[in-house]
């Protein structure tokens, strides 16, 4: 029996947490429900810039204990909220 809710729960919780992080730490002037999970974080999407990228790196470390040294992995992870969730879940899986 496929337990869909078990798959959804960790992603939904991380989505809530990352949305709050963008609004609170990066002062994104949007309500959390406007932050669609696959919308682009940078450029024409949420409009984040290189300074925000540095802030996101810091947040990943302070909020999730994740330090990413690989620039390619970071660039991929910072495309959307969903790709950030993928990174956090992968790091947690790797640490388990």
């Amino acid at each position, binding site marked *: 029996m496929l337990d869909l809710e078990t798959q959804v729960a960790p992603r*939904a919780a991380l989505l809530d947490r990352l949305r709050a992080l963008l609004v609170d730490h990066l002062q994104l002037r949007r309500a959390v429900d406007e932050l669609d999970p696959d919308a682009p974080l940078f450029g024409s999407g949420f409009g984040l810039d290189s300074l925000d990228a540095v802030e996101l790196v810091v947040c990943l470390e302070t909020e999730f204990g994740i330090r990413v040294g690989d620039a390619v992995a970071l660039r991929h992870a910072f495309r959307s909220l969903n790709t950030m969730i993928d990174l956090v879940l992968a790091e947690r899986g790797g640490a388990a």
Partner: protein
Amino acid sequence: MSVADEVRVLRTSAALAAGDHLACVRVRGAGAHDLLDRISPRELFLRSGQLLHTVLLDDAALPIADVYLGCDDDDYLVIAEGMTGRAVADYLAAHAGGLDAAIEDTSESHAFLCLGGPYAWEVLAELTSPDVIGLPYLGFFHAPEFSCFRAGKTGEYGYDLWIERGRLAEVRERIAAVGRAFDLAPISPAALTVAALENWFWNPRRDVRPGLTPIELQLQWRISYGRTFPGSAALAARRASAQQRIVLAASPGALVDGAVICAGDRAIGAVLHAEWSPTRDEALAIALLDRPVAHAGLTGLIARTPAGAVPLRTLSAPALDNRSLYVDPQRHSYATRHTDSFPPLVRA
């Protein structure tokens, strides 16, 4: 050349497509800014030479066109996909009451060519000047032979060239001649459609259904909720009641539009638009799922197609790591591509 081969060219070198899906409307006059401000769902902060990516909505908040709004000195441009130039002009005229604004559909006088690919910038630099390398995304400039908008919906370096129809053949021939050194190839609208889906760009020619607003379509980043614009009241009302959201889905089997998506025996949504992705060598789809379960990373789903059930999973968009993210015009060139190192287009 097959659509799959066309997409491969677009993903690895440079490609040229006819831009018949695009239309440009110019708005002049003292009321031009105020007219665009009335119809733009997004704050209209633009300097000359800049574009703003947004959508046009109908009164029910259904997106009817994907648009770039541009500031061109004292004039404004509306570059639209999903509506004809005439329809865009009519839409603008319907909202222009009391404003001094002259609306000109340029479809009869001008056409578009779309240049894209990780080395499209190098083709354009040969055609015009090395200065184009510094053109930012959503910037534009006017050259003697065409106007060049850095935009596109393929995830690659993209340039939409706006050309007087009388010069169209000459410019196309010049691009083809310059493009030989970059293995540039012509590609079809079908290849652009596949590329747009791979990169999670909304396609106004395919991804339109009654009831799907920017909330269901994950297009809220193109909306500013504090504004008044066509459809803004309907959108605000929808905000608390949206029941579904689109998610990127993939399958090793063939998917078709309309296939019901199930988790076990439970129907949780349907395929809105499916294409075969040559980059991933699997089917990709925009899946419209019930909102509580509309997340990436779901496995074990089934899509029920007329040919039978096929396995389905959801994933984070976009579906590839575009080469254009890593090609740096200051360090790379098409001539050195075999010695340059780039990540794979699809991550394991």
